[in-house]
């Protein structure tokens, strides 16, 4: 081998070594980079796992994953809380054996098998509501969404579950509450409306549209509403609108006149409140009280007829008394006329005496006429009227008519009338009917009493709460305290020949005047009957006239709590 050959070999070898060295360096560099990449990926994976774990741990929904055999591979803390299992208890167990109720297991297993065989899914990607089972065996409604985990082969699945017991309960409550409200509105013929005063925007419930017989499809305007308001009640309707501007709570009674000329009676209770922006808004309940009004009117008519019947019954009882009242002046008339004729027939005629007796004849004639007028007022058939009534005066008139009847029964009457008695509002004749009834009852109660004076006291006085009271006290046979309620029942009577309607009618008359009629045994012998009526300033009184005493009116009501 020459030196040249040797040199050449060395050079070649060196070059080969260098190349190999380069290869090695490259390989090392590549390996290092691969290692770095791997480390990076591992770190990424760990980060991802950590993120996933964090999501699993803090998710509010239950997250349960299963593999293709249905075995549980993940069971997050929310699932632990909801189903009552520890994660470690259920990992690797079949889902069907753990949280699916026995009744649904077969369905679940079939669906799962079908999907694996055909990829035909019924639940994937859908939000469904089904039933879950707690570790203690209780069942509860759950909302479920199932997704297939992408990439995994064989397939695995993630289920997101949520206990919707409370939501179901709330939904049910809401539904019940809505049904309740709707039923209540329907049963009570009540509708609701709201009105924003600033914009005039009005919203009605379906019931009000039905009451007004207006089409809900057309815009609701005040003009449209006014087409239904009864012409006679437009004034009170406008008064109500004024109140709305002022933001006060109110109650309003008014009528509708329907296109077929029928009349509906409405009762409105309205409450003002402010919305979040401080705008005035009304919420109101509207009730169709037509049926009630008609019933009240019918009741008033029956009451009026009964009252008349009672009056006629009393009339019978008082025939003798009335005859006395009329016969007294008639006796005067005939005596005076006889005297007059005799004075004129004398020689010379006593003209001055005759003139005086003629004058007395006329006076007694007028007296008889007054008696008849009073009788007709008290016993005639008459529509109820509301007027200012002085109870003292009303009682005195009744006493005038019944005094001789009382005397005939040897009743000693004492009258104690308060001087400063405020007037009441009501039907004078009806109230006098009650007073007469109480007086005759008291007299009857003493008709068998012979061992003591038959004292009867009638007294008027101011009562508490701006009321006026009239009481009639006798010393008669009294009544059994146990039957105190029965004596006010219709057709209950302790009297021979009594019809037993006097007290029940009397009580209904007093109650229609917003008053109270009661009875109490005395400490001594006898009983006291009394009634109490609100004095005149105590508001509008509904007397029992034939339309039930209805008036259209708006009244302020005490302000109830207002929204801030």
């Amino acid at each position, binding site marked *: 081998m020459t030196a040249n050959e040797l040199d050449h070999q060395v050079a070649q070898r060196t070059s080969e070594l260098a190349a190999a060295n380069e290869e090695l360096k490259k390989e090392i560099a590549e390996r290092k980079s691969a290692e770095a990449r791997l480390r990076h990926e591992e770190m990424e994976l760990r980060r991802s796992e950590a993120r996933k774990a964090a999501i699993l741990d803090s998710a509010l929904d239950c997250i349960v994953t299963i593999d293709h055999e249905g075995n549980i591979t993940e069971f997050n803390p929310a699932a632990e809380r909801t189903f009552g299992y520890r994660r470690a208890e259920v990992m690797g167990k079949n889902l069907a054996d753990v949280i699916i109720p026995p009744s649904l297991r077969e369905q679940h297993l079939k669906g799962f098998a079908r999907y694996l065989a055909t990829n035909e899914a019924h639940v994937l990607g859908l939000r469904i509501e089904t039933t879950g089972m707690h570790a203690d065996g209780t069942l509860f409604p759950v909302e479920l969404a199932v997704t297939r985990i992408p990439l995994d082969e064989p397939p695995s699945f993630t289920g997101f579950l949520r206990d919707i017991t409370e939501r179901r309960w709330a939904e049910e409550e809401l539904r019940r509450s809505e049904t309740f409200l709707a039923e209540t509105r329907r049963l009570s013929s009540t509708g609701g409306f709201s009105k924003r005063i600033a914009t005039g925007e009005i919203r009605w419930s379906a019931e009000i549209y039905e009451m007004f017989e207006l089409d809900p499809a057309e815009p609701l305007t005040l003009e449209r509403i006014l087409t239904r308001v009864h012409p006679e009640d437009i004034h009170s309707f406008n008064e109500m609108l004024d109140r709305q501007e002022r933001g006060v709570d109110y109650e309003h009674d008014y009528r509708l006149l329907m296109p077929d000329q029928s009349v509906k009676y409405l009762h409105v209770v309205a409450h003002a409140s402010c919305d979040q922006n401080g705008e005035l808004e009304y919420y109101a309940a509207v009730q169709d009280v037509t049926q009630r009004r008609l019933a009240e009117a019918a009741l008033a008519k029956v009451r009026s007829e009964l009252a008349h019947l009672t009056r006629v019954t009393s009339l019978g009882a008082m025939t*003798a008394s009335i*005859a*006395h*009242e009329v*016969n*007294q*002046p*008639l*006796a*005067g*008339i*005939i*005596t*005076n006329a*006889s*005297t007059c004729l*005799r*004075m004129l027939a004398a020689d010379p005629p006593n003209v001055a*005496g005759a003139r005086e*007796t003629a004058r*007395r004849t006329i*006076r*007694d004639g007028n*007296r008889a006429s007054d008696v008849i007028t009073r009788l007709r007022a008290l016993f005639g058939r008459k529509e109820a009227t509301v007027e200012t009534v002085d109870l003292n005066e009303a009682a005195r008139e009744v006493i005038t008519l019944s005094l*001789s009847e009382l*005397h*005939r029964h*040897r009743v*000693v009457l004492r009258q104690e009338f308060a001087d400063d008695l405020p007037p009441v509002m009501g039907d004078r004749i009806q109230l006098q009917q009650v007073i007469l009834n109480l007086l005759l009852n008291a007299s009857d109660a003493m008709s068998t009493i012979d061992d003591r004076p038959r004292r009867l006291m009638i007294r008027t006085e101011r009562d508490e709460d701006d009321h006026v009271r009239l009481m009639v006290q006798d010393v008669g046979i009294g009544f059994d305290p146990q039957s105190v309620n029965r004596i006010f029942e219709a057709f209950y009577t302790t009297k021979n020949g009594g019809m037993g309607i006097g007290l029940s009618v009397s009580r209904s008359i007093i109650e229609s005047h917003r008053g109270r009629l009661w009875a109490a045994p005395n400490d001594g012998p006898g009983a006291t009957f009394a009634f109490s009526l609100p004095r005149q300033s105590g508001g509008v009184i509904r007397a029992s006239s034939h339309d039930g005493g209805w008036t259209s009116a708006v009244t302020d009501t005490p302000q109830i709590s207002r929204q801030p």
Partner: protein
Amino acid sequence: MVTHSLVSVVDDDESVRESLPDLLKEFGFAVQAFSSAEEFLASDCIEQTRCLILDIAMPGMSGPDLQLELTQRGQDIPVVFITAHGDDTVRPRLLRQGAVECLFKPFSDTALLAALNAALHAD
């Protein structure tokens, strides 16, 4: 006719006390009127009264009560009852108890005069 015999009228009704005395005077009687039995008993007219015209129903002492009281005092005055309560059962009872007559208001002047004549004749 007996003139100037005293007839006393007891009646709580004022128009009777006013009208009846004038008629009785036309008949020729002397008359005193009283508004109650008690007032008559308290008066000094009992002795002179030849006939008593007496209302039945009055507050306080009634007509029949007064009649009984007078009988008990030995004052046998003929009584003509007058009443505005036209009760048919009342008259026979009063007549049995000694009344001369019982007239229902309103009564005629002739009926009254006949009753007075009967009363004074009985006296």
